[in-house]
C-alpha cells in the first residue's frame, strides 16, 4: 500500500533526536540557542513519520530494550493503537517545538524555568510520552508513565521559586502519583491473572479474569486514568498545573498528555478484558457527561486565559469519554460496526482536540509574551497590535466551539451519529434515555463552549484594551507564528478532509473493535453505515456554500456599489466617550450563565458595606465573587483535613514517654502471642 517502507529501527530516530535535544540543551545552556528546539522539531517530525508508518504496517514492531531486573523487562511495541497515539503526540509537538524557539527567548522571569531547562525537560517529556504509548509491559508502562509525570512536574514548577507554581506542581504530581498507584494495582490484577508482566500475556489471558477482578480492574483503571485525563472530580490538579507550565508545554500537557490516559483506557478496557459488562459503558458516559458539562461551566467562570483552556480540556476529555462509553456499551451489546464508528468518533475528536487546544494554548502564550498577563480583564483590543495572532486564535476558537467547517465539528458530528447509532441499535428505553441525556448534554456543552470562546476571543482581542500592557502589545516572533500557523492550518485541513484521519484509524478500530467504520465525508460520498444510520456532512461543500451564499454576494455588492457608503464614528454609549471600563468585562459576559447554572457551579458572593459615619453613608463597598468548586471543599479539603487531624492524633502516641513505649512492646507481644497460640 505504501511506496515508502521505513525500517523498524527508524522508530529509534525520534528518541535519538529527543535525547540529543536534552544533551544539547544541557550542554549549551546559553540563551538564544535554537538547536535543542530544532532537534525537538526533528524528533517530532520523525515521530510522526514513524507513527504513520506504524499505522500502515500489518505487523506490530516489537522491541526489548533491556531488563532492569530479570522480572522487569523494558519492552516496547508499536501497534496501530500505539502508532495513532504517537501521531497524536508528535503532530502538536512539531508546532510546539517551532514555537518554543521564539517563545523561550521572549518569556523569562515569572517563575519560568530557564531556557536550557525548559528545552531539556521538553525533550524528555516528549520522549516519555512517546514511550508511554509504546510500552509493552507493566514495568515499561509504569516507568514511562511516572517519568512523564515527573518531567512535566518540573516543567510546572518552573524555577520553583513561585509558591503558586510550586503548589500547582505539588497537587499535580501527588494526584498523578496516587493515580499511578491505582493503575499499578490494575496492572497487578492483570499480572495475577495472566502470570506474566508483559502486555502480550495480559491480552492472552483477557478472558480468564473473574467477575470481581474485572470490576475491580475497571474501577481502578477509571480512577487511575481518570485522574490523568482530568475527569471531574479527579481533575483538580489540571486547571492548576496546565496553566503554570510554559505555554508550549501547557499545549502539550493539555492537548496531548491527558490523551495518554485515554490511550490507557483503550488499552486496558479493550484489549485486556473480554466482554465488558454494560454498566461500564453507562459509567463512562455518565462520567463523561459530568466532566464535559462542569468542565465548560468552570471554564466560563475563569478569567485567566490558560485556566479557561485547561478547564476546557476537562470538558473535551469528558466528551471523549462519552464517546468511549458509547463504544464500550455498543461493544457489550454486540454491535461491532457501530462501536467502531463510536471509536472513530472518539479518536477523531481526540486528535482534533490535540490540534486546536495546542493552537489556543500557543495563542495564549503569545498573548502572555506580548502583554505579560493572561487575565482577560486586563486584555482587549489585541487584534490591532497582534492581527495575525488574532486570526490564529479565532481559528482555534471556531474549532473548539465545534463549528463547521473546522475540525472540531467533525468529531462532535460523528459523536452525535454514534450516540444515535447507540440509541437505534440498543432499542431499549433505558439506553434511549441515556442517549438523550448524553446527546442533550453534548449539545449543551458545545453551545457553552461557543459562549466560552466568544468570551475568550471577544474580550481578549476585540474592542478597547483594558490595560496599558494590552494597548502596547506587539506581534510576537516569527517562529511562534510558524507554530501557531501550522496548527491553524491543520485545524482547517482536518476540518475539510477528515477522511485522512478515518483512513488512518482503520487499523486501529479493526484491532480494537474487530470492525471498521469509514464514514466518507467528502465531495461525493456522505453516507455512513447505510444499514444502521445515515446522515451527511460535506465540509468542502459547506465551505463552498458559505462562500457562495455569504461572501460572494458581499463581494458582488461591493463591486456593484463600491465600498458602500460607510463612515467611521465613535461607538455610541449614550452620549459619553467610550472608556475601557464601560465595556462588558469577561466576568459580566459570563454572568447570565453563572445565574442560570448557579445550582450546578455554586458561585459565592460577598458584599460588604463600610458605613463608618452612619447607616446612610456608605464609604466603601467591597464586592467579591468567585467560584469555589464544591468538590474541592467537600472532597479534597475534607480528605486532607482528615489526614492531618488523624495524623496529629496518631502522633500523640509518640508521646516521648519511654514507659509508654515499653508498654507498646509489651502489648504487642501479648497480642501476637494471643494470635499465635
Amino acid at each position: 500500500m505504501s511506496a515508502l517502507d521505513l525500517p523498524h529501527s527508524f522508530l529509534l530516530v525520534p528518541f535519538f533526536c529527543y535525547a540529543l535535544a536534552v544533551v544539547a540543551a544541557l550542554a549549551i545552556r546559553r540563551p538564544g540557542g535554537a538547536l535543542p528546539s530544532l532537534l525537538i522539531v526533528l524528533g517530532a517530525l520523525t515521530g510522526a513519520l514513524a507513527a504513520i508508518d506504524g499505522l500502515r504496517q500489518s505487523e506490530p514492531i516489537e522491541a526489548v530494550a533491556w531488563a532492569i531486573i530479570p522480572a522487569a523487562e523494558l519492552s516496547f511495541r508499536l501497534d496501530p493503537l500505539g502508532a495513532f497515539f504517537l501521531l497524536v503526540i508528535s503532530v502538536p509537538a512539531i508546532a510546539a517545538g517551532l514555537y518554543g524557539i521564539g517563545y523561550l527567548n521572549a518569556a523569562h522571569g515569572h517563575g519560568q524555568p530557564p531556557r536550557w531547562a525548559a528545552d531539556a525537560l521538553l525533550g524528555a517529556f516528549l520522549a516519555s510520552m512517546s514511550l508511554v504509548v509504546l510500552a509493552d509491559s507493566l514495568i515499561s508502562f509504569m516507568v514511562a508513565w511516572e517519568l512523564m509525570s515527573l518531567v512535566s512536574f518540573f516543567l510546572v514548577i518552573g524555577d520553583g521559586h513561585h509558591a503558586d507554581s510550586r503548589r500547582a506542581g505539588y497537587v499535580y504530581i501527588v494526584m498523578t502519583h496516587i493515580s499511578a498507584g491505582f493503575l499499578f494495582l490494575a496492572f497487578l490484577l492483570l499480572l495475577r491473572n495472566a502470570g506474566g508482566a508483559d502486555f502480550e500475556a495480559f491480552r492472552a489471558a483477557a478472558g480468564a479474569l473473574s467477575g470481581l477482578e474485572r470490576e475491580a480492574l475497571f474501577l481502578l483503571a477509571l480512577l487511575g486514568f481518570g485522574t490523568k485525563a482530568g475527569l471531574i472530580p479527579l481533575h483538580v490538579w489540571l486547571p492548576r498545573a496546565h496553566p503554570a507550565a510554559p505555554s508550549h508545554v501547557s499545549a502539550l500537557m493539555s492537548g496531548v498528555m491527558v490523551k495518554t490516559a485515554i490511550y490507557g483506557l483503550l488499552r486496558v478496557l479493550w484489549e485486556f478484558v473480554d466482554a465488558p459488562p454494560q454498566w461500564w459503558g453507562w459509567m463512562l458516559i455518565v462520567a463523561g457527561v459530568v466532566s464535559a458539562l462542569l468542565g465548560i461551566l468552570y471554564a466560563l467562570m475563569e478569567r485567566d486565559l490558560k485556566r479557561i483552556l485547561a478547564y476546557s480540556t476537562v470538558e473535551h476529555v469528558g466528551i471523549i469519554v462519552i464517546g468511549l462509553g458509547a463504544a464500550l456499551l455498543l461493544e457489550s451489546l454486540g454491535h461491532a460496526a457501530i462501536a467502531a464508528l463510536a471509536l472513530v468518533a472518539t479518536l477523531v475528536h481526540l486528535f482534533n482536540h490535540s490540534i486546536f487546544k495546542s493552537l489556543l494554548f500557543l495563542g495564549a502564550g503569545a498573548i502572555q509574551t506580548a502583554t505579560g498577563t493572561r487575565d482577560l480583564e486586563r486584555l482587549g483590543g489585541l487584534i490591532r497590535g497582534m492581527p495575525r495572532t488574532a486570526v490564529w486564535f479565532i481559528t482555534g476558537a471556531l474549532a473548539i466551539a465545534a463549528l463547521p467547517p473546522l475540525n472540531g465539528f467533525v468529531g462532535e458530528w460523528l459523536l452525535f451519529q454514534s450516540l444515535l447509532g447507540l440509541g437505534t441499535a440498543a432499542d431499549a428505553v433505558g439506553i434511549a434515555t441515556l442517549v438523550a441525556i448524553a446527546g442533550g448534554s453534548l449539545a449543551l456543552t458545545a453551545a457553552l463552549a461557543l459562549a466560552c470562546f466568544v468570551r475568550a476571543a471577544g474580550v481578549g482581542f476585540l474592542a478597547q484594551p483594558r490595560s496599558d500592557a494590552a494597548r502596547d502589545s506587539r506581534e510576537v516572533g516569527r517562529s511562534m507564528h510558524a507554530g501557531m500557523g501550522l496548527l491553524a492550518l491543520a485545524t482547517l485541513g482536518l476540518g475539510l478532509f477528515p477522511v485522512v484521519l478515518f483512513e488512518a484509524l482503520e487499523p486501529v478500530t479493526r484491532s480494537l473493535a474487530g470492525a471498521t467504520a469509514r464514514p466518507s465525508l467528502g465531495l461525493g460520498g456522505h453516507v455512513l453505515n447505510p444499514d444502521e444510520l445515515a446522515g451527511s456532512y460535506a465540509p468542502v461543500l459547506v465551505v463552498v456554500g458559505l462562500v457562495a451564499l455569504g461572501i460572494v454576494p458581499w463581494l458582488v455588492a461591493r463591486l456593484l456599489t463600491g465600498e458602500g457608503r460607510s463612515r467611521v464614528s465613535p461607538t455610541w454609549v449614550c452620549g459619553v466617550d467610550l472608556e475601557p471600563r464601560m465595556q462588558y468585562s469577561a466576568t459580566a459576559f459570563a454572568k447570565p450563565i453563572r445565574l442560570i447554572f448557579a445550582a450546578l457551579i455554586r458561585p459565592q458572593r460577598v458584599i460588604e458595606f463600610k458605613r463608618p459615619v452612619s447607616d446612610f453613608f456608605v464609604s466603601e463597598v467591597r464586592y467579591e465573587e468567585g467560584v469555589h468548586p464544591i468538590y474541592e471543599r467537600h472532597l479534597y479539603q475534607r480528605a486532607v483535613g482528615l489526614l492531618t487531624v488523624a495524623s496529629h492524633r496518631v502522633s500523640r502516641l509518640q508521646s516521648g514517654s519511654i514507659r509508654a513505649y515499653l508498654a507498646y512492646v509489651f502489648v504487642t507481644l501479648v497480642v501476637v502471642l494471643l494470635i499465635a497460640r
Partner: protein
Amino acid sequence: MDPLLLAIQISLVILFAPLAQGIIKTSKARWQNRRGPSIFQPYFDLLKWLGRESVVSDQASWVFRLAPYIYGGAILLAAALVPTFARGSAAPGFGDAIVFVGLFALARFWLALAALDTGSNFGGMGSSREVAFAALVEPALLLVIFAVALPAGSTSLTALVGSGWPGASEIVAFLALMIVAIAETGRIPVDNPDTHLELTMIHEGMLLEYSGRPLGVLHWASQIKQLAILSLIAALFLPWGLADPASLGVAGIALGVATWGVKIAALGLLLGMIETAFAKLRIFRAPDLIGVASVLGVLAVMATFVVGP
C-alpha cells in the same frame, strides 16, 4: 442533489422570509386589536436599510465588517438544507440536521463576536445573553432532532420529514420545537423583537451598533432563520402536500409552495397569538421555559420507545 431544486428553494426562502415576518407581525397586531403595519412592511424596511449609509464604530475591526456576511451565508445555507415545499432536503449532500444546528451556531458565533467588537456595552450585553440562552436552546433543538431521528434511523433531513399523523412522541417534540422556535426567533415570552430596552433585549442588542446595509443583511438573515425554523416544524410535523423531489413538475412545485405558504402562515398566526397571549418573562425566568423544552425533548426521545414509532 438537484441544482434546480436548490436554486428554487434558496430564492424562495430569500424572497419569502420578510413576508413570514410580516405575517407574524400582522397576526400579532390583529390579535391585539391593532391594524398594524402592512404585511409587506418588512420588505420596505429591508430596502431602506440596504440603501442607507453605514456607520461603523472606530473601535471595530474586520470581525465587525465580516460578521454580517458570514452570518447571512451560514443562515442561508442552513435554510437551504430544510425541506420546504418538497419532500426532502434541497441540498442533502451538504449536511443533515446536525449540520443545520452547527450552521446556526456558526452564525451565532460571528454575530456574538461582532457585537463585542465595538466595545459598546449594549453589544456585550446582547452577546452575553444570546450565547447563554442559545446554550439552552441548542440541546432542546438537538433532542427534538434525536426524537425524530431515532425512529427514522437517520439524521438526514430528507429522512426526517414526517409521514402522516403525528404520534405521541411527535406531539411532545412539536411542543418542544415551538418553544425552541420562540427562543431562536427572539419572541415573547423569551425576548421582545420590538424593543431596545436594555433590561430585556437579547438579539437586538447585538445589532445595535450596526446600521445601513450590514443591518439590512442581518435583519434579512434573521428573518430567513425564522422561516427556516418554521419550515422545519412544518416539514417534521405537518408533512402534507409536499412536492416529490424525484419528479419535479410545475404543478407539484406549485402545490408544494402553496401548502408550504399555508403552513407557514398558520404557524405565523400561532406565534402571533402566543406573543399576544403571554407576557414577556423576566429575563432570568426564560431559562425555565427553555429548560421545559429540553425536558420535553428527552421525553420525546423516550416516547419513541415507550409508545413505539
